[in-house]
Every structure is written in structure tokens, then in C-alpha cells.
């Protein structure tokens, strides 16, 4: 069942979040609030905890939450299984989309869409209905039908994988989209296609967390707020201009802080 939500609450509210991986503390008290309708960028150097943050929000195994809370639409997100989070509207676009040999994209996407629809109390789509839906969305993102017949992500180029992630996002219609280093491994043309797809999904109900090392992607997905993540904490927050500033100055100024 869809969880009871508080529409007054921010879409995502992270308070003092601390998390360990294999006994080592990576997130050291994160505070971050994303109201519905906004796009927030989290930038930071390698090893600052960016990917850990995205995995913790998506519910991946192997991360020990030692303190703090995460409220998603007013509800305790950390109590939910990954699939429950997904069904409730959290989507993670993976930095490294996973290959699943033998499983056709068509089958995978149909199963995913129907899982989410079931959760929302909607009827499942049959193969014909799904084909109609996926064709339309795939065309927008330049994902050929031939790609849907291939095994999920198997033998895809970097650009194909990211477009495939964007296609899944479009099909699942999430509320909170987390983009983990979506620009990595993308040439500029592919980046434009993916960014346009993502931008099309912006709406007053949806929020977005764009995790990136480089400012480049933010030229195409314009953020409302930019946060700098360093040593497991938000070191600085500001408007879109902060991203440009970082592009000039680099992350050196955050070195050694908050160890």
C-alpha cells in the first residue's frame, strides 16, 4: 500500500545523518532538505560520501545508519525496504548501471513498471499496453527498440546505459529522482539527451537530487540549490552560482576540513 504521506512536509528531509560502511564512518551528520518542485545539486570531491548518500537513500544493503533521520514526504524512509522506497517514488539513476544477462530490457522494464503500478493500486499492464507506453518514452530518449530486446545493460555503451536509466525514470514516474554522477562516461550529445529527458520530468510535485563531481551537467539541469559535500558533511550551500565558483576554485578549499 502507498504510505500515508504528509503533503505539508518537505519531499525529503535529512537530519544529522551518519552512516558507516564496513565500520568506517562515511556520512558524518548530513543535513539537507529538498522541498517538492526543487532541484538540488550535491557536489564534492571523490571520496566525500556522495555515492554513499545516494545508496543510503535508496536503501542499499551494507550501510549502517548510526544516527539521524530521513523523512520522505513526512515518513521514516529508513524503515522501508529498497523496493518499497522505489514503489513510493524514489528513483536512483545509477552511476554504474548493472548488467543483467539473459533478461531482456522489455521484460525487466515491464516487471518494474507493474511492480510499481501494483503498489499504487493500479492495474498491471499487459505486453501490448506496455509496448505502447515504452515505445513512446523510448523514442523521446533515443532508445531504439532493438535495445529493449537486448539483455539489460549488457554490452551497452556508457551513453546507452545512461539513456536507459533515463528511460526507466520516465516509465516509473518517481517523485524523488536521485542522479548519481549521471554525467560520468557521457559525451556532450548523450548528456544533452539525458538532461533533456530529466528536465522534462521537472514538476511542482517532484524533487531532484543531482550528485556530481563536475559542474557541467548543471548547465543542462539547472539547480535551485547547490551543496558542497566534503568529509561526510555539507560544507557549504548556496544558489546555482556556487557551482560555477567551484568550477573555478576546485575543491581544494575544503581539504582537511571536518576530519
Amino acid at each position, binding site marked *: 500500500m502507498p504510505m500515508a504521506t504528509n503533503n505539508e512536509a518537505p519531499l525529503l528531509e535529512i537530519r544529522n545523518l551518519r552512516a558507516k560502511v564496513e565500520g568506517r564512518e562515511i556520512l558524518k551528520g548530513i543535513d539537507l532538505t529538498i522541498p517538492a518542485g526543487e532541484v538540488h545539486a550535491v557536489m564534492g570531491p571523490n571520496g566525500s560520501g556522495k555515492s554513499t548518500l545516494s545508496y543510503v537513500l535508496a536503501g542499499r*544493503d*551494507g550501510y549502517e545508519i548510526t544516527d539521524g533521520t530521513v523523512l520522505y514526504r513526512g515518513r521514516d524512509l529508513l524503515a522501508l525496504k529498497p523496493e518499497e522506497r522505489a514503489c513510493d517514488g524514489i528513483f536512483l539513476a545509477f552511476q554504474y*548501471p548493472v548488467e543483467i544477462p*539473459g*533478461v*531482456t530490457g522489455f521484460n525487466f522494464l515491464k516487471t518494474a*513498471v507493474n*511492480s*510499481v503500478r501494483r503498489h499504487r493500486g493500479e492495474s498491471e499492464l499487459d505486453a501490448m499496453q506496455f509496448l505502447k507506453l515504452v515505445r513512446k518514452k523510448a523514442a523521446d530518449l533515443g532508445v531504439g527498440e532493438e535495445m529493449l530486446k537486448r539483455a539489460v545493460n549488457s554490452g551497452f555503451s556508457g551513453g546507452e546505459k545512461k539513456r536507459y536509466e533515463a528511460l526507466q525514470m520516465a516509465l516509473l514516474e518517481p517523485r524523488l529522482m536521485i542522479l548519481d554522477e549521471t554525467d560520468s562516461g557521457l559525451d556532450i550529445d548523450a548528456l544533452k539527451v539525458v538532461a533533456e529527458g530529466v528536465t522534462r520530468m521537472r514538476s511542482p510535485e517532484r524533487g531532484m537530487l543531482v550528485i556530481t563531481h563536475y559542474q557541467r551537467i548543471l548547465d543542462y539541469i539547472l539547480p535551485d540549490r547547490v551543496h558542497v559535500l566534503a568529509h561526510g558533511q555539507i560544507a557549504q550551500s548556496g544558489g546555482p552560482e556556487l557551482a560555477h565558483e567551484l568550477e573555478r576554485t576546485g575543491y581544494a578549499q575544503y581539504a582537511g576540513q571536518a576530519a
Partner: protein
Amino acid sequence: MMTDGMDQVRSLAEQKYKYGFITDIEADVAPKGLSEDTIRFISAKKNEPEWLLEWRLRAYRLWLNQVEPRWAKIHHAPIDYQDSYYYSAPKTKDGPKSMDEVDPKLLETYEKLGVPLHERAILAGVAVDAVFDSVSVATTYKGKLEELGIIFMSMSEAVTKHPDLVRRYLGSVVPYSDNYFATLNSAVFTDGSFVYVPPGVHCPMELSTYFRINAANTGQFERTLIIADKGAYVSYLEGCTAPMRDENQLHAAVVELVALDEAQIKYSTVQNWYPGDENGKGGIYNFVTKRGACRGRASRISWTQVETGSAITWKYPSCILQGDDSVGEFYSVAITNNYQQADTGTKMIHIGRNTRSQIISKGISAGHADNTYRGLVRVLPKAEGARNHTQCDSLLIGNHCGAHTAPYIESRNPSARIEHEATTSKISEDQLFYARQRGMSSEEAVSLIVNGFCRDVLQHLPMEFAVEAQKLVGISLEGSVG
């Protein structure tokens, strides 16, 4: 570190065996244990001709001097052959003459199993020869088949009604001296199915037998014989379940197929015998000999098996490619979970010229299970132009299971072309998380991934059963993954 995903997958494995109910029916049983008297009892019960009793006794005397094969990668406590009943028939006054006379409890059992026995059989277009313990209780769809001259009946009935056919072909593919378990079967087999398709006839429906072991301590020794005469075609499906019991039950069946010139036999098995509990207690010991003879020119035999059950599976459906241009195929999915052990594969014996064979084997191993592919491709000197292609893939789920491959290749003709490909892979935590992040439960994700892995094999199953098999693949692995 321990992870939720794995735990969930493991708990899936522990889900209850759905077919573990026991039907309470009074049974007509032979005295416990194995002796010439037991064999005479069985033979007399079935009003068998003298030649068949003699054949059984010859097998029995030979069996006494045989030893159990030890080469398979399986382990089990010694089997006490004297501690089993070799004949168990549901007690009815004179044997059912029509469906109305069949014990309603039996029909209920079949209903639980989902066997389309009554009118449902006709709707489904499936002719079912149902074997309940040792005796065939009902055969449906007989009339339609009779019109075409197709014989589809229990082995016991065939012995009486078509003694010449039975005598000509019984043991002609798997002789009574073949191997320990086949010899035992020859001595004590109780029932099974018999199919004969006359020349040029294309059997218009899938023929199906549903085997089920019910009575406790009963070995099931059915014997199936299928003959496709020149230019004939038949597709046969065998499905198996057994109730849940703590003790192990022995199942030692023999299946013989004979394809004459240009005939084609498709034999599909969905085996879902009780696999034992999550600690490896109980379950069926499945020691089965299945072999087909492509005796005629351009004949074709194809085995498709989905093996998800049994504590032990020891089974190598094989093809003897005797006729020139004959074709043998083996498509297999073997799934082992918990403490199940499977040692399964095929033998393709190329004798005739331009004979071809294809092997696709998909082994899936989870829990503490061991899964071995054992195969032989043998090309004899006269098999000019023989070709074989073998694809052998293993999928591991978790860190405590094993996958093993033992392919034997022997070629004595330099023109033969033999290819062997093999892969081993694992369902990774990454794959599971990826699928769950898209909204699927662990079970759904595992089922999807495993079905993708098995696709090349499942597509060879008759349409009606492919869907069932896909579900079964998911169910057998519920609780398994890592």
C-alpha cells in the same frame, strides 16, 4: 557483512513445499522387502504373461550381483532395499471402469495438484494418464486418440492388450542389464505409460502423465515406453510431485523412446518431487534412466527437462543416434536449493552418418546445494560428418553452493565437429539491488534473473507448460539467493 537482501532470499528457500499433502486411501500393498516372491506377487497382480515374469526374474537375479554406481557427485546414506514396499495400489473393488468409479479422494488429490483430469482435461486439450503410486487410475481422451490409431494407456494395460508391441520394444533401448537402477526397475516396475503412434500420424495433442508418489516407504518404479513409427510425431509431458515425508523415498524409473524413419519424439519433464526440508531431511531419491533411440533415418528425439525437486537427482536422458541424419537434443534446467544434489546431463551417441546433436544445460545452485552437469558426446568411426554443439551454463546463488561440470568428449571420426561452451556466473548483490531499486521484490528479481538465464531451455517446452515452468523456477528458488 550480513545483508537484508540475502536474508530475504534465504527465507524464500524455506517456504513450504506446496504439494506436501498426503492422501488417506487404503492401499493394496505387497509385503515389505524385495525377493522373487515380491516380483511374483507384482506380476500376478497384473496378470502378466509368463515371458514378462521371466524377464523380471532375470533382471532381479542379475541385480543381486550388481553394485550401486558410485561415480556421481552425490552423497547419501545407504539405501535399504528391503525396507521398502514395491507395490502399492489404491484399493478398489474391481478397478475403476470409468472416471465415475475413481475414488473421489484421488480426484481431489489431482485437483490439488492441478492435473486436468476430468472435463478440464478436454478443455485443456491434454490427455492425462495419471499414475497414482503404482497403478494408472484413469486415462482421459482415449477416444480421440483411438480414432487416429494412437495407443496411449498404462503399461499394465498395454502388456495385456498389445503384448506384441510391448514385447518387441520393452528393454530394446534400456536393456534389463543396463545399470543398477534400471535393472532394479526391470525387476519390480509396477506401471507407467505406453504410447504407440502409427506411421505418418501426427499426434494432435500433448500427451501427459502425472506421476505422484503417495504411500509412505513406497518406491516408485514406473516404466514408460514410447514408439513413434515412420513419419510419426508425438509430444509427451511428464510432471511429478510427491508428498512431504521425513524419510527418503526411492524413485527409479525407466523411460525408453524409439523413433523410426523420419519420426519425431519430444519428451518434456517438469520434475517437482519433494526436495526435502531446508535442513536436507527427507525428499525423493530420483535415480532415473531415460534413453531414446533414433533408430530410423532422419529421426529426431528431443528431451527437455526442468528439474526443480528431489533430494537427489541422478539422471541422464540420452540419445542413440543410429539412423543417418538423425538428430538428438537435450535441453535442461536443473535447480538445486538447500541441500539438494543433482548430477544430471546427457549422452549423445553418434553412430549414423551426418547425425547432429545439441545440448543446452542450465544449472542453478543455491543454498548448500551441489549441481553437476555430466555429459558424454561420443562419435563412433562410421559417424561421418557428425556434429555436436554443447552449451553448459551454471548460475550460483549465494556462497555455500557448488556447480560442477564434467563433459566427456570422445571422437573416433576425424570429420566430426564438436563444440563445447561453458560459463559460470553468479547472481550478484548489485543485480538484486538494481532490480529492487526499480520496485521488484527480491523474489521477483531472482525469478526474473533465473528465468532469463533459462530462457533458451524453457522456450523448448510445450506452450501450455512453459508458463507453469517459469512459475516453478521462481518458486523453487524462493528463499535462495545471495
